[in-house]
């Protein structure tokens, strides 16, 4: 019997001590160390991608669109309309990449988690450590993009400052859910399916145009998916249009993160400790 | 005597300033099992690549099956089976499909490929793995599959680059057994190895290669006879005292080699040497009398150990 299961037996199956040793920062530290040896182009590109999109779509296409009228009746420039959406999308993409492909490789090729589980780390340490690393990267990118928005005059309200914690929450939601889903994946082909979910969310979640262009049932479907909540949350903050809905979006992500962490922890335990 | 399968004269290969092969002469007869023995980086693999018509020679003459690799690469390769040092099986295809797809490269009709695939799976003792994924095979099984794949075109010459490196002893013996059977069937084998026991097991004739040159040539027994004594005494005095002890016993046997961990005394009669040593008042921690091997030949020829 390995040490962690022994502990689990002593404290009772599912005891928190068996799951979490309060050492997620060791896992996070490994992530940062590994990042130093990864290629800078890949790391840097995470910042440039949304900026390219903002210039091409917001500024270029914006010349054919003019102003966008918000539900409150206020009209804003097209660039100011899509910039917060691109920020939400990049938070999603970064978190999903770090929590799916990265985790998949470590699970099946690097065998990193087997090694971690053989130490005194618990599954929750690993889950939180990995998610924490994804968040850190997301916040760095978000800060960069917000600076670009500020320079371009696309932050319309002081509440734009609050997008930083909001991006953290969104990334946490996607990272924890992404890791939970990845723990069920066993082949590359299955991993491709994740992409098939991300693309329609990216195109249809009020990213480039309001939901009102769709018939009502499709609007409901989109409103059930996570990216729409992220886009609306961030857009509310950068434009200063906060409503009761804002709290709803936050609640959606809190729930998503909780589900993700619980499922991931359970899966890691059953994969490596049972 | 039939015409040689491979003839090389003054064969050289340079990569920029680096001289990988510095003038090699060799001949391999049909049905012969021919080995290139030498340490890593001796130029064995480069020589194999030139014979396999996948590396253009810098100088010298080379004929394989009576053809020049520079102009008749595809023709020569159509009669070769190549087992590379590092397996390059297609992990995205199943075991049997690997054989069939490879046979197609030779223009062999699909039905023939399929029939041969089944025969070869039996030969390689992999019948029950036909539908398995390559990644699920053990190291020894992968090697056997690679050999089976190299036989799919019924080659006249089978070229093996370090065939058993990285395998456990049992897997090595299974592999040697399969190669023996090919030898019995008259397939010409050309192999490189840095294992003396492998060379002794498999090769009718071999060349010892070091720094791109041939140091000696002959059958394993011949090489041992010419370049070493019949027996070797291995004496261990403890790592601090080997050098001093070697000086004390200077003159014993035909020749003495001092290695960091032991002293080797080459002599026709090993037991006699052991007696003389103890008469000198020396008491080694261990003393062992054994027959000379190719390792000793190599040490004699190059002053270095094969596996460093």
């Amino acid at each position: 019997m390995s040490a962690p299961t022994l502990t689990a037996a002593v404290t009772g199956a599912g005891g928190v001590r068996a799951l979490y040793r309060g050492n997620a920062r060791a896992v996070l530290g490994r992530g940062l160390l590994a990042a130093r040896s990864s290629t800078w182009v890949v790391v840097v590109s995470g910042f440039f991608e949304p900026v390219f999109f903002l210039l091409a779509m917001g500024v270029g296409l914006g010349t054919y669109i003019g102003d966008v009228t918000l539900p409150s009746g206020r009209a804003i420039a097209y660039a100011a309309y899509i910039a917060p959406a691109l920020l939400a999308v990049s938070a999603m993409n970064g978190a999903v990449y770090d929590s799916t492909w990265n985790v998949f490789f470590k699970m099946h090729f690097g065998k990193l988690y087997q090694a971690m589980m053989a130490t005194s780390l618990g599954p929750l340490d690993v889950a939180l450590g990995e998610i924490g690393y994804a968040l850190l990267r997301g916040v760095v990118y978000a800060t960069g993009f917000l600076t670009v928005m500020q320079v371009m005059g696309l932050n319309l309200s002081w509440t734009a400052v609050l997008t930083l914690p909001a991006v953290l929450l969104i990334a946490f939601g996607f990272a924890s859910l992404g890791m939970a889903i990845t723990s069920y994946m066993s082949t590359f082909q299955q991993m491709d399916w994740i992409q098939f979910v991300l693309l329609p969310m990216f195109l249809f979640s009020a990213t480039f145009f309001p939901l009102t262009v769709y018939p009502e049932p499709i609007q409901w479907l989109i409103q059930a998916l996570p990216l729409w909540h992220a886009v609306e949350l961030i857009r509310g903050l950068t434009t200063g249009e906060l409503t009761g809905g804002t709290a709803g979006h936050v609640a959606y992500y809190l729930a998503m993160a909780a589900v993700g962490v619980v499922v991931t922890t359970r899966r890691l335990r059953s994969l490596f400790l049972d | 005597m039939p015409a040689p399968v491979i003839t090389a004269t003054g064969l050289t290969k340079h990569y920029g300033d680096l001289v990988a092969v510095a003038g090699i002469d060799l001949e391999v007869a049909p049905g012969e099992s021919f080995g290139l023995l030498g340490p890593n980086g001796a130029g064995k693999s480069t020589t194999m690549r030139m014979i396999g018509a996948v590396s253009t020679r810098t100088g010298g003459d080379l004929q394989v099956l009576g053809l020049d690799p520079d102009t008749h690469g595809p023709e020569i390769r159509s009669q070769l089976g190549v087992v590379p040092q590092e397996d390059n099986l297609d992990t995205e295809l199943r075991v049997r499909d690997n054989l069939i797809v490879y046979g197609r490269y030779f223009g062999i009709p699909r039905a023939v490929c399929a029939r041969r695939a089944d025969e070869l799976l039996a030969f390689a003792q992999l019948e029950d793995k036909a539908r398995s994924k390559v990644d699920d095979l053990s190291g020894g099984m992968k090697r056997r599959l690679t050999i089976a794949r190299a036989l799919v075109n019924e080659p006249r010459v089978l070229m093996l680059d370090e065939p058993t490196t990285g395998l456990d002893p049992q897997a090595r013996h299974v592999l040697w057994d399969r190669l023996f059977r090919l030898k019995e069937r008259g397939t010409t084998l050309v192999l490189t190895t840095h294992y003396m026991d492998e060379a002794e097991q498999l090769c009718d004739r071999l060349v010892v290669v070091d720094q791109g040159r041939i140091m000696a040539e002959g059958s394993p027994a011949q090489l041992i006879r010419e370049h070493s004594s019949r027996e070797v005494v291995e004496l261990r005095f403890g790592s601090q005292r080997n050098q001093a002890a070697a000086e004390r016993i200077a003159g014993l046997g035909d020749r003495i080699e001092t290695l960091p961990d032991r002293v080797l005394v080459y002599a026709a009669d090993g037991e006699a040497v052991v007696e003389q040593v103890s008469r000198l008042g020396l008491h080694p921690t261990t003393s062992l009398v054994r027959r000379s091997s190719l390792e000793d030949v190599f040490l004699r020829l190059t002053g270095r150990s094969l596996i460093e």
Partner: protein
Amino acid sequence: MSVEQTTRDDATLAALAGAVRPRRFGALYVAEHQLRAMRAYGWTIVIGGLGQPLLYLLGLGLGLASFLDAPVGFGPDGPVPYVTFVAPALLVTATISVTTEEFTYTVMSGFKWRRVFWGMNASPLAPGQVATGLVLAVAVRMAFVAVAYTALIAAFGAVGHLWSVAVLPLLGLLGGMAFGLPLLAYSAGLRDDAGQFAAVQRFVFTPMFLFSGTFYPLATLPTWLHWIGWVSPLWHASELGRAVSYAQPMSGATVAVHLGVLVALAAGGWVLARRVFVGRMHG
């Protein structure tokens, strides 16, 4: 004639006979192998090949279009629907994105990860045939993507003249190869992937996709960005596609320039790629 001579002739003759078929059909054997390997992710190719165009046409062509204030594309008789304007560019983007996978990771895999190219190299196949076979297999995948995309474009009514659906897939193929073959030459020379492919994806492909007059005419961009279009196979192929689809006004000389750039890129990349394969496999 001595016994010696006949033995020798026997082996030599077998060799001469053994290489006849590989010399003639070698590239096809490689293509066959590559296509077999693609079957492992066949569903991804099919779903991606149909789903992606569907989503883009719906999202950009219809969703975004209903939101535009000013017309973007013009035929000889005035404005055309936005979806008609973007469709050719989306088609070429799709064929190009096939190459950012198949002419990068697949090549690295053949040389380094799965090492199957070395297995081919030991057979009678020549390095040039390995390159050709790979390109043929990718052309098949690209053709599937192009035909599927064109069919959906037609279903959306996003073409000016229906006959143009016969030409659009060919332009997709040409555009894909004009981008892909130089990329193949680059990838085949790499010993290791230390992020170069991700860099190609994010610093070459994405900016090209965004700034090649894909969503609006190149002239909309500031002048100092126009060069991106000029060097972009996507722009040249999209412009030709628009000329074919809804007769976007274009002089004969312009057509010739677009075609010339695409053919030159594809042919140059092809020659270079073959050379890199030969150098690497028979060095």
